[in-house]
């Protein structure tokens, strides 16, 4: 009797955990949270867009009957960065806990060089225009998704269509085959998603990014960046081995010299200068970094959306206290402290 009770109790606990923990990104809830059947409620349009961060109603329906575009849902006028289960990438006021990708708040408030200049949130970067550093000019300003964006299918111009169906994909397994089955809807990219977008990240609770050991592997997070910033992730732009021409990515963190002493020789996974993994789904100990095995990536230094710091870096690279300015560099370059 006791055994049956124990087994039953365990089953209940497991079921409760499954219900409570968002194990994947498949959207649940009321359809009307995201869709409008007729773009009309009381004679007023329901659809809207964000223009320079402000909502503007539109009588023209959005594709897929959506109420708004990407930014419309992933924006908040509060400080929280997860609102009703939705990850917020643009807070109109200073975010309390920016998520893994950072926050577009800083582009508006700290300067254009603090993040990506996404249409709808800000204008183009006055220095760069629509030419990504290390890449070639785009004929349109950066979007969230589609050909001119990062998310979704980059062969499709319209960002709604580029993301079609992604939020409804049963994505327990991320294999990169569709947008929905790709890491953070970055089509083709692999990885392991932390369920709360690193809202409460620790050295053991965090995303696991896909790394590679060459520039041709298209599933790595850095290869996605390279689709626009090509010179920063290519043999001609970076070189194939040391001495590198530019800071390399998608290379193994060497298990020698100063690198073997990653993070003050603790080998603790650093949220300031994290690494990618060659197999994000079979990391023996997420809290540890393994030199000789783990991978340097673009996101080792940068936040994808925006950060409070120059060039969307993860630490204050321009702080006039040199110790702080180099605090991120020295996680890997341990002899340069």
């Amino acid at each position: 009797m006791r055994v049956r009770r124990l087994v039953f109790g365990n089953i209940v606990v497991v079921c409760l955990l499954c219900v409570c923990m968002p194990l994947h990104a498949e959207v649940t809830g009321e359809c009307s949270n995201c869709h409008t059947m007729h773009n009309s409620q009381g004679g007023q349009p329901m659809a809207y867009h964000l223009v320079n961060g402000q909502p503007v109603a539109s009588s023209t329906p959005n594709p897929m009957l959506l109420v708004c575009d990407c930014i419309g849902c992933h924006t908040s006028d509060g400080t929280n960065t997860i609102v009703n289960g939705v990850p917020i990438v643009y807070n109109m006021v200073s975010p309390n806990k920016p998520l893994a990708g950072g926050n577009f708040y800083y582009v508006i408030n700290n300067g254009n060089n603090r993040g990506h200049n996404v249409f709808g949130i800000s204008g183009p970067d006055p220095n760069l225009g629509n030419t990504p550093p290390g890449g070639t000019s785009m004929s349109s300003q950066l979007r969230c998704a589609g050909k001119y964006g990062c998310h979704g299918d980059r062969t499709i111009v319209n960002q709604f269509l580029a993301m079609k169906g992604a939020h409804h994909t049963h994505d327990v397994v991320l294999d990169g085959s569709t947008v929905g089955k790709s890491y953070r809807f970055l089509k083709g990219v692999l990885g392991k998603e932390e369920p709360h977008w690193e809202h409460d990240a620790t050295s053991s609770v965090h995303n696991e990014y896909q790394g590679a050991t060459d520039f041709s592997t298209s599933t790595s997070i850095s290869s996605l960046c390279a689709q626009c910033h090509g010179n920063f992730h290519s043999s001609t732009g970076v070189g194939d081995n040391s001495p590198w021409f530019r800071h390399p990515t998608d290379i193994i963190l060497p298990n020698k010299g100063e690198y073997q002493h990653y993070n003050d020789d603790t080998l603790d996974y650093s949220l300031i200068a994290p690494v990618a993994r060659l197999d994000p789904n079979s990391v023996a100990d997420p809290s540890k970094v393994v030199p000789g095995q783990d991978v340097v990536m673009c996101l080792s230094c940068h936040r994808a959306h925006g950060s409070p710091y120059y060039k969307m870096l993860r630490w204050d690279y321009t702080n006039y206290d040199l110790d702080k300015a180099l605090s991120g560099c020295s996680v890997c370059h341990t002899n340069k402290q």
Partner: protein
Amino acid sequence: MHIREFFKSYRESGKFIFKIMLLVSIFVWASGPIYAGNYLNSAHGNSNYGVKRTGISQYPRGHCAHCHEQHASINGAEPVPINGAVGYLLFSPNYTSQTVNFCFDCHVQTGGYQEGGGIINRSYSYNFGGNTDSYDNDLKQAFSHTAPGSSHNLNDIKKILGTTMYDANGHEWSLPKTLNPCDACHNPHIVQRNYPVSNADGKLKTAVTRPSNPNQLWGDDEGERMNRYGDYQAPYWYGSDTDDPKFEPAGDEVQDGSNLPDFVRLCTDCHNGYNQIWSSRLGRYLLPIKWFSNNGDIHGVKRGFIKRPRPPYSYQQHYTLSCTDCHEPHGSSNIFLLRTSINGKSISVSNTDDESWRNFCYGACHNYKHNKRNCFECHHHNKKF
């Protein structure tokens, strides 16, 4: 409790607390960040006089980005100087020739990229010998000497990078082939400003690292300086004599070498009996230098008494000399990198004629010159008399 017992207990508990504190202190000390580097204590990483490239205003002085361009691009364009992306992410090519070198882009009196004007690095004879009459002002100038002057041949150094070398004890070492030859003796991420001489709190500021151990400063710690030999005598400071003795390298009273890195160990990492080093300038292999051998150099560690010495050297004494007592490390208007001042006196050695050698040997350290033949025929490195 009796008052005596109370105090006994108090004393014992005090000892216990002391022991605990000692253990905690040892633990805290031992568990510190062992692999903390030394960049922020280096000359280049110094927040007052470290690297600061002209036109790069957003980064503080000493910042990596003044030398290294992570992407060869800031705000979509490469900052000056525009050289494209080059090795080690440097802003210009690491090494091209004897006079075209990344280091010289800043270590030059005029026209460099260091904000606020050029960097003055005068000759050893000036900085550490006090010779204000004949010297070079910057490193590029020092490495530019051609005949009758001489300079440490960077291309010859470049050739030994990537090869197996042996230190004076016969231990193997090797440096990466792609290094800048200057890095062989100066790891740019740790070497310090060494002029004026600063020897505080047991640490000597030093600008050198040994080729055989490039990740450690050399000369900063006790035991890495010339006084370790026990018979080092610092030469006179330029113009100094017995009436008003001042000594190298600081122009003060210190004369035991405790304020001078052990340049013998540094230089003999390459220049010893194990390595054959080709000299492009001389068109032959350099003479081996056996500073530690019983059958080696007369000026080295194990040979006999000095002959007919001039002050501050004394009769019936043996001295172990530092290489820098006679040689400039980078370049000189004299042959064989010989200094323009030695033991307080101006020295000119423009060729290998007997008169030049007299000026050197007799003029600086020895008060007698026999007239049998040219000094150099019998007295040179690897000679035991």
